[in-house]
């Protein structure tokens, strides 16, 4: 959190309503999102209790395990869930585009991808565990499960893992996305409560949000009072209807909140880089679909050393890119860097578009721009700069003193002897320059998995699903 966000939180607390900390939306919103609210049985690692899900806000599907300790009912529930989720996921596989690649064969990329919207990070973690407890199952042998269950497990695992990938929108958590766009007058801990967070953004704060009788928790854990007074007696009564209706009361309020959260996010204009990140999501989704189609094994329990290092490097790069892209897309995010002196913005007061450096053949066009700014510039001369107004352009800081900064354009102004039209800002234009740039170091070269050095445990054993995995207890 930055001082800018802290100030927004103070303002929110003072005014009694959340304050914007973004001017554009930084996540992709599907035209056909699926809202997924899972509930689990308290005290168990991953025992499903119920889920409310669907793509139509007026017609949620409610799936319930009416005897949560019954293993067969759990798998029947998983099969039901697969019956709703898998057709949704697979509906995005038909329409694809061919993508050419350098040094690799072209591949097919889905034109659109699924988006599973969950309430909070707890739901993401639970989804991963559900995936873990179902993906190794077998449809034959001693403890057979319905056919769709292992496939569901692989998709849930994939989506759950993708959710921790910075900038991915395949499985966004409502509290996280709302919290990225609005600052409330409460702590981050309290923002994890979807009802409380939404009330801050819409009608102003209310303590009702913390009353489980008015706003039941958004899961995956249920309210302990509800467990004791409603759910336990309902389960003991042996009446499936009673259990189902009890759980419906816990899920319906959250269902309404989820769609309100989606509407709120949809009300913001989309950031310029969102489509690019969604393209990566679509590529990743197509890759996963291809792995399944080729009959690959389920994801292993744990990554090998090389796979883990590669994953970490990918995620670090994605995080860095996500941070930079948000700043370029959104002046309010860029303001954080202006506050710390890593960016500055202001009005162009003077230009020298025809400025050159060097003589003869090495003579180069280097247009100069002087910007008047109120920002504290803490960048040394020679710093490489980029600008959100002209994304392909590169520049360099020449000097900064007394609120006047001279910038030299070094890249992206055309190859002629005079700059391309529009490449050099006009006097009076508002511009922003920053030392944040999108070019990162490539990832370190990692060995092939088969040549993992002994320091890292040597080559990992190839994962072969076995009977123990398939028959693992789920009590």
């Amino acid at each position, binding site marked *: 959190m930055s001082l800018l966000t802290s*100030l927004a939180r*103070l303002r929110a607390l003072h005014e009694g309503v959340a304050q914007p900390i973004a001017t554009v939306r930084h996540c992709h919103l599907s035209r056909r999102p699926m809202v997924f609210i899972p509930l689990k049985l308290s*005290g168990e690692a991953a025992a499903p209790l119920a889920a409310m899900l669907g793509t139509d806000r007026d017609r949620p599907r409610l799936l319930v395990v009416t005897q949560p300790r019954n293993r067969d009912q759990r798998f029947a529930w998983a099969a039901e869930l697969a019956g709703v989720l898998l057709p949704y996921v697979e509906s995005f596989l038909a329409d694809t585009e061919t993508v050419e690649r350098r040094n690799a064969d072209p591949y097919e990329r889905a034109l659109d991808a699924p988006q599973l919207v969950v309430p909070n990070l707890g739901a993401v973690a639970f989804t991963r565990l559900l995936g873990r407890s179902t993906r190794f199952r077998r449809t034959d042998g001693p403890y057979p499960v319905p056919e769709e269950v292992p496939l569901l497990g692989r998709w849930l695992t994939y989506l759950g893992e993708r959710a921790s990938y910075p900038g991915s929108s395949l499985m966004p958590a409502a509290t996280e996305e709302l919290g990225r766009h609005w600052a409330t007058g409460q702590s*981050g801990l309290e923002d994890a409560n979807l009802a409380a967070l939404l009330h801050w953004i819409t009608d102003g704060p209310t303590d009702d949000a913390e009353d489980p009788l008015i706003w039941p928790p958004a899961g995956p854990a249920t309210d302990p009072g509800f467990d004791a007074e409603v759910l336990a007696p309902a389960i003991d009564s042996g009446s499936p209807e009673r259990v189902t209706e009890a759980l419906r009361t816990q899920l319906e309020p959250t269902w309404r909140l989820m769609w309100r959260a989606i509407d709120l996010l949809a009300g913001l204009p989309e950031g310029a880089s969102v489509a690019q990140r969604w393209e990566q999501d679509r590529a990743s989704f197509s890759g996963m679909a291809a792995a399944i189609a080729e009959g690959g094994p389920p994801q292993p329990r744990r990554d090998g050393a090389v796979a883990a290092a590669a994953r970490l490097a990918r995620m670090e790069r994605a995080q860095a890119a996500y941070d930079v892209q948000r700043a370029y897309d959104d002046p*309010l995010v860029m*303001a954080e860097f202006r506050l710390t002196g890593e960016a500055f913005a202001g009005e162009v007061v003077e230009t020298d578009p025809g400025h050159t450096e060097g003589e003869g053949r090495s003579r180069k066009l280097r247009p100069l721009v002087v910007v008047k700014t109120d920002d504290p510039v803490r960048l040394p001369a020679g710093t490489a700069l980029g600008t959100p107004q002209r994304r392909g352009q590169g520049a360099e800081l020449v000097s900064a003193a007394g609120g006047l900064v001279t910038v030299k354009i070094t890249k992206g102004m055309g190859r002629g002897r005079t700059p391309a039209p529009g490449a050099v800002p006009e006097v009076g234009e508002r511009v922003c320059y920053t030392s944040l740039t999108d070019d990162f170091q490539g990832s370190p070269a990692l060995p092939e998995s088969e040549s993992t050095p002994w320091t890292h445990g040597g080559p990992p054993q190839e994962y072969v699903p076995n009977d123990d995995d398939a028959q693992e207890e789920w009590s």
Partner: protein
Amino acid sequence: MSGLKRSTSGPGERLAALRGTTPQSPHDARAIAALAANPGCARRALLDGAGIDKDAAARHLGFPAPFGQSPFAITRGNAFESLVKADGCAELLRMLREVLGLPIAEVAYHDVENVGAHLRHAHTRALIDRAAAGAPGAGTLYDHPLLSLEIAGSTAYLEPDVVAFQLGGRFHIVEIKSFAVIDGQADPSAVAAAARQAAVYVLALRALLEELGHDPLKVSHDVVLVCPENFANRPVATLVDVRRQLAVLRRQLTRMTALDRLLDDLPEDLTFDLAPGEDGLPTRPPAELADALRRTDARYAPDCLSACDLCFFCRDEARQEGASDLLGRQVRDELGGVASVEEALGLADGTRHPAEGQEEIARLLRNAERLRKECLA
């Protein structure tokens, strides 16, 4: 008996006066771990020191604590614990052999809970003393030992739901928890909480050994955490190094203002007596109790919401004061010494002049305000 005492009495009597007619509620390791997480909170230190039931107080004040445990979780926890401890801890011993790599040939199991409550601490002491001295037949496993720890100048008794394990005069604390370890990974916050609690027991057991004239380091800083593995009920044992938690705990306990100093600053007639009626329910007017509590300093932080029964009461107080504490430690740290929301916003929009030492944060806030205005215009 009236809760009011006017004499300049010792801390023990003073605490008894704070408690009044309310029955004393014991400390547990969770409470100590939570107290150590917020050592600057005088209100909590006093309430815990006096042994006031904070949960009952919060309820009576109209701010019931947001905690509760699901009956499903309790059932599962109990089932798991009895599975581990079945047949004189047979399952536990199998795991201890594996995880500690020790040849444990024969075993004597002592359940200290079988001894009458008033004797438990003395009995625990005697058993541990004999074991530390290497006396033959001193036992291997001690279930429900009653330990004690000095907290802010008063003795707190701990009734751990744990087993102490001894072999060759070396002790390990064994903690049984029912959260799952899946593919070698568990919920980090659950593990952290278990480690903090175990550290309290290690510290208490070390204190006991020291008091008995033995080497306190005979208690290992590696505790044995026993949890269900994957999705089944089968237990798995893991060694957890709690040296860091021990260091934090020790530092926080010494930092905690000694209770007698806190007591000195209190008005003579102050009491937190809940005045329980015959049915055990508090009868003291809630407004009066609230007034009494407000005369002690609390240090509210959002972390309290997961640790302290009085959290909603203190949060309400912080709201009324417009304290920036409400927004969390990170915001508070960033504001560097500007405690109230009003003050910070005044500095930001320039309606308030920075006091000495506030120039830097005021400049930053004004700049931040200018940038926000510009971007949202």
